[in-house]
């Protein structure tokens, strides 16, 4: 494998890791506050549709992004009402949200665009284009550093850089602010937060809302940056891979970055079987690569390689004592 192939591979790794990273951080906020969220997939899908649909109708991708975030927030609110206010089963609510998004996106897409459940292809201002970072063209011919900067670091859409920036931001918010301390506490021991006079319900709604915003950006990235338009079921299990990455990362922001990059690399390798063959000298089945994130998560969950301990109050509705 030559240097340029490696750069190309890492470049597509970054592209594929971005939606996973955003969704993984989304899940991190929610689960750290004690709300399990297996509805990441559905929220991404809804956001992917609404951002593509609104972007294609208005011609402005930023309006599309807002619409995507709005759709994802609406589903988050539903999850919040079901699991916080009515103390329902968070897992079942997540399952319902996934199906709701899968069904509604096709239904609305068919009703609005009549193209068999897809949106028209996005062009020009209705899409996030790659940004050429300053100096990329000038440096492109410099050996070694040139391609690294021009091909790998430069040339992505703004959402990729936003996702990367979200990692230190999440870390700072969770570990260096009062809000973060309370958010983590509410996922471990909500009664203590309640005793301190801080609203458990308020904190959990805040966490679920942040989760909605991040999932919204992740979905918008899928349909307006990674691809040019919405197609049926385009999230294709990414919400579940993000969930797997979250466990792999043991609910920590920096680990989430590495886990999603690793899973992104698997995705990138899936499309380049020739690269694997030249590196390890044997053929690897693409199905095996596709299943690898899930297998690794099961192994991690089983505690054979390090132990992943979820937030203690995760999944349990909080009942105030009377």
């Amino acid at each position: 494998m030559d240097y340029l192939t490696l750069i190309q591979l890492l470049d597509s790794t970054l592209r594929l890791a971005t939606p996973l990273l955003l969704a993984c951080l989304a899940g991190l906020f929610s689960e750290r506050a004690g709300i399990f969220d297996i509805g990441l997939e559905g929220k991404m899908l809804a956001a992917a549709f609404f951002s593509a649909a609104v972007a294609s109708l208005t011609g402005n991708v930023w309006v599309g992004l807002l619409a995507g975030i709005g759709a994802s927030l609406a589903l988050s609110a539903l999850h919040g009402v079901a699991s916080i206010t009515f103390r329902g089963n968070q897992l079942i609510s997540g399952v319902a949200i996934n199906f709701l998004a899968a069904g509604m996106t096709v239904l609305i897409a068919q009703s609005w665009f009549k193209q068999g459940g897809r949106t028209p292809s996005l062009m020009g201002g209705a899409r996030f284009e790659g940004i050429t970072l300053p100096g990329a063209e000038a440096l492109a011919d410099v050996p070694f550093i040139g391609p690294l900067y021009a091909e790998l670091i430069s040339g992505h859409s703004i959402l990729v850089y936003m996702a990367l920036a979200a990692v230190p931001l999440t870390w700072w918010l969770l570990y260096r602010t009062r809000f973060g301390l309370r958010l983590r506490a509410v996922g471990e021991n909500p009664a203590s937060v309640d005793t301190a006079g801080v609203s458990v319900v308020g904190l959990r709604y805040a966490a679920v809302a942040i989760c909605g915003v991040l999932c919204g950006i992740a979905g918008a990235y899928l349909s307006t940056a990674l691809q040019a338009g919405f197609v049926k079921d385009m999230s294709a299990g990414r919400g579940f891979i993000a969930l797997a990455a979250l466990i792999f990362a043991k609910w920590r922001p920096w680990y989430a970055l590495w886990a999603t990059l690793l899973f992104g690399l698997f995705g990138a390798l899936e499309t380049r079987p020739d690269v694997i063959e030249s590196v390890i000298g044997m053929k690897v089945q693409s199905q095996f690569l596709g299943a690898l994130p899930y297998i690794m998560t099961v192994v991690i969950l089983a505690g054979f390689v390090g132990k992943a301990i979820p937030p203690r109050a995760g999944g349990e509705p909080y009942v105030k004592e009377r």
Partner: protein
Amino acid sequence: MDVMPKWAEVVLVPLISLLLAGIISALVVLAIGEDPVAAAKLMVSGALGSTYGWGYTLYYATNFMFTGLAVAIAFHARLFNIGGEGQAMLGGLGVALACLYIPWPHWSLALVGAAVMAGLFGAIWAAIPAWLQAKRGSHIVITTIMFNFIAAALLNYTLVNMLRPKGSMDPATARFSEATNLPTLHDLLSPLGIAFSKAAPANISLLVAIAACFGLWLLIWRTRLGYEIRAYGYSESAAKYAGISPVKITMVAMIISGALAGLMAINNVMGEAERLVLNSTEGAGFIGIAVALMGRSHPLGVFIAAILFGFLYQGGAELALWTSIPRELIVVIQALVILFTGALDNMVRMPLEKLFLARRRARVAKEGAAN
């Protein structure tokens, strides 16, 4: 003390949840510019208006009975098995192996053999997450989700690389031999003088599914094991104190659950397609969740809910055929049913409980005044 009388718990709450799901579905149909009343009429006539429609409705219902029972038995042990889809896929693999490599002399023997293989494969696929939950404390919801994806990859691999006949591009097995073809409802009912559509795929698996409903009822409410499963589901600590092993219950409940999900394959793989194709389960494993929730995890409830969902599936297919409403409407209805009967259960229950409590208080006060 139970606040609500039993009939309200068993009938009223699910009915109100279903009504809410129905109203919102109708609003969705209205919002996409179609007539909900006409749509409902078309669904009823398409799914129940002919033996052809009934044949499809019952075919789908058979799938959902198996997967619904699978989710229900796990619910009784307070385990959430989202892996029905993967277990049913593996069941399909078991059926395919049994039908392709064993020269069965008669369909009845083939049915028994295929059912054993289907149950075994499904059970194994559920036993791994169960063991990880019981022994290593891995959350069963996450592991079963992961196992769905792993099952899909495994099935894809075996179909493409091993079971696909030479020269065929289609990732599917060869057709099973004539001897393994199951009798359809047409074959079963015509000796009785009842004319049933020949084209519809409903087959003898329906009777197996009904037997499974009854068998599970016996198991849950009439055996020691069923008692232990229910006790464990109500209170893990109390069950432990009574000498019930959590590891055993988790394993047994999930093995039964996986076997039931796997059994679905005798209907869709052996009874209908008569070969194994990719995505043969078509999401039936997930519909099992909705069916179990609506049926309140009771085998009779599961039976009724499965027929309702069979009707929705066949009706939805007719809608997609004759109107511009896409098939995905059923997915929306399914989501709403899961939402209202599962996640938003308390939203329906809390006001009802208040109502019954107020009535009881009024009655007690009246009796007090009379004395």
